[in-house]
C-alpha cells in the first residue's frame, strides 16, 4: 500500500531523514518509534508532501513524490499532524466538514458525520463550539475525526497521544483500533512506545534519521535494545 525507498529529507544542510526504506501493507497497523529528533515527523511530512524530499514514495500504484499535498486526500491518504492542526477558529462541525472537503456525496458525508459523532460523542456535544477552546484531548479527537471524514484508505498519525490524560489516551487508542478494524491502513508515529507496540502488528525503530530495527511488534517489545532505549527499563 505504502512503500518508501531511500527516502531522504534535508533541512538546509541538516539531514533529518537519511535514505530510509519501509513498507506498509494494506490493512496493516504499523508504527514508527524513535527518540526526539529522530526524524519521524519529517518522514510523515515527506509522505504527505508537506516538505520536499528525495527518494521514492510509492502509494498503491502511484508515485507520490511529485504530487502536491492537496491531491493526496483524493487518493485516500490522510495525515493527522503533530500538534493536531485543528482549525482553531472554525467550529467543531466546520472542522469536520473540512475533512470531507474533497468529497461531493452530500448524503454520504452526512452519514459519516453521524457515524463519527457516534464514535466520538464528545464532539457531538461540542459541535457548535469554536475548536480552539476545546481541551487537548478533545482536539485530538477532532483531528482524528476530521481525518476520518475524508474516508481515507491510509491514515498517518503523528503522536496522537501527546498531551492527553491517561483516560483520553486509552480512548484515542480505542478509536485507532476500531478504525483499523474497519479496514483502514494505519501508519502510526508514537512516543508512547509501549502502547504503540501493543496496538500495532509491526513496527520500525528510527534513530538519527535511519531505520535501525524493523520487526513484529511483539519481537520489538521483547528486544532489549528497545526496552532500554524506549521503554525506560
Amino acid at each position, binding site marked *: 500500500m505504502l512503500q518508501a525507498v531511500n527516502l531522504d529529507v534535508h533541512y538546509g544542510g541538516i539531514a533529518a531523514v537519511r535514505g530510509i526504506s519501509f513498507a506498509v501493507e494494506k490493512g496493516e497497523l504499523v508504527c514508527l518509534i524513535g*527518540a*526526539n529528533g*529522530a526524524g519521524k515527523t519529517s518522514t510523515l511530512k515527506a509522505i504527505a508532501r508537506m516538505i520536499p524530499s528525495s527518494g521514492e514514495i510509492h502509494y498503491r500504484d502511484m508515485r507520490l513524490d511529485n504530487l502536491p499535498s492537496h491531491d493526496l486526500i483524493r487518493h485516500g491518504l490522510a495525515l493527522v499532524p*503533530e500538534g493536531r492542526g485543528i482549525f482553531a477558529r472554525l467550529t467543531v462541525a466546520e472542522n469536520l466538514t473540512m475533512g470531507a472537503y474533497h468529497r461531493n456525496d452530500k448524503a454520504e458525508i452526512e452519514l459519516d458525520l453521524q457515524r463519527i459523532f457516534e464514535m466520538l460523542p464528545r464532539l457531538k456535544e461540542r459541535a457548535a463550539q469554536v475548536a480552539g477552546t476545546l481541551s487537548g484531548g478533545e482536539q485530538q479527537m477532532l483531528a482524528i475525526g476530521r481525518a476520518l471524514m475524508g474516508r481515507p484508505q491510509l491514515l498517518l498519525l503523528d*503522536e496522537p497521544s*501527546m498531551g492527553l*490524560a491517561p*483516560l483520553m489516551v*486509552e480512548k484515542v487508542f480505542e478509536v485507532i483500533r476500531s478504525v483499523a478494524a474497519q479496514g483502514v491502513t494505519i501508519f502510526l508515529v508514537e*512516543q508512547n512506545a509501549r502502547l504503540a507496540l501493543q496496538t500495532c502488528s509491526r513496527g520500525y525503530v528510527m534513530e538519527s534519521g535511519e531505520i535501525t530495527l524493523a520487526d513484529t511488534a511483539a519481537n520489538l517489545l521483547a528486544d532489549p535494545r528497545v526496552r532500554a532505549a524506549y521503554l525506560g527499563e
Partner: protein
Amino acid sequence: MSGEVLLEARNIGKRFGGVQALKDVSLTIRAREIYGLIGPNGAGKTTFFNVMTGLYPRDGGEVLFGGVPLELGTPYLVAQAGIARTFQNIRLFGNMTAIENVMVGRHVRTHVGVFGAILRTPGQRAEEAAIRRRADELLHYVGISHRANDLARNLSYGDQRRLEIARALATEPQLLALDEPAAGMNATETVALRKLIEGLRADGLTVLLIEHDVKLVMGLCDRVAVLDYGEKIAEDVPGVVQKDPKVIEAYLGAGGD
C-alpha cells in the same frame, strides 16, 4: 519532608465566556517540593499557570509567593519575583538561536541599560560575557549544547522542550513551573527528564509540574493536586491520590498504573 510555604494560591477563579476554567482553587507549595498538578484535558491546569504567572487576569483570589502577594497581570514582575515557566505548546523565540533564547532569560537578572550598551562600558562587557557563560552552562545542563547556534524553530520537539526549560532556568527562579514537559518524549527520554527535575530540586529549586504521564508524576512528586472541571478534587501524596475513587473516575481510569 520540606520547609516553609513558598507559594500559596487562594481561591483562584477564572472564567472564559461560558466556561468556568477555575473555581476557587487553593493550593500551597512548600519550598523544595516537587508538586504535581494533574487532571483531565481541559480541567484548568494550564489556566492556573497562566493566572499564576500573570499572563491572564484573574477573576478572583490571590497568589502569595514567599508570603508576598504577587502582582498579577504583570508577568515580568512575577518572573522577577522568582517564578519561571514553560509552555504546553512550546513558545520559543523561533528565529533566535538556542543560546540567544537562553540569554533572553537572563534579562530579568541583569541590569545594563541603553546607555551602558551604547557606551559599551566595562561593566556592560563583563555582564554580557557572564550572560553568555551562564547560557552556555544551562544548554549543557539540559543537554543540547551541540545545538547552541541553531535557530530554535529548527530544533526537534523534544529539544525545544529542553530549550524552554533552559530559558526558564536562566531567570534564576525559585519556583519552576513546567507544563507537560514530557509530552512528546518516549519513556527513556522521560527518565532522563525525571533525573533533570530531581537534579533541579537537589539544587534547591521548587518544581510545579503539570503532566499526563502518570508514572512520572506519581514517581516524582511529593504531593499531587487533581483538578477536574476547574475544581480541586484531591490533594495529597501520590499514593493516596492514586487510590482516590474520584480521581480514578475523572482521570486515571480503570487501567491507571
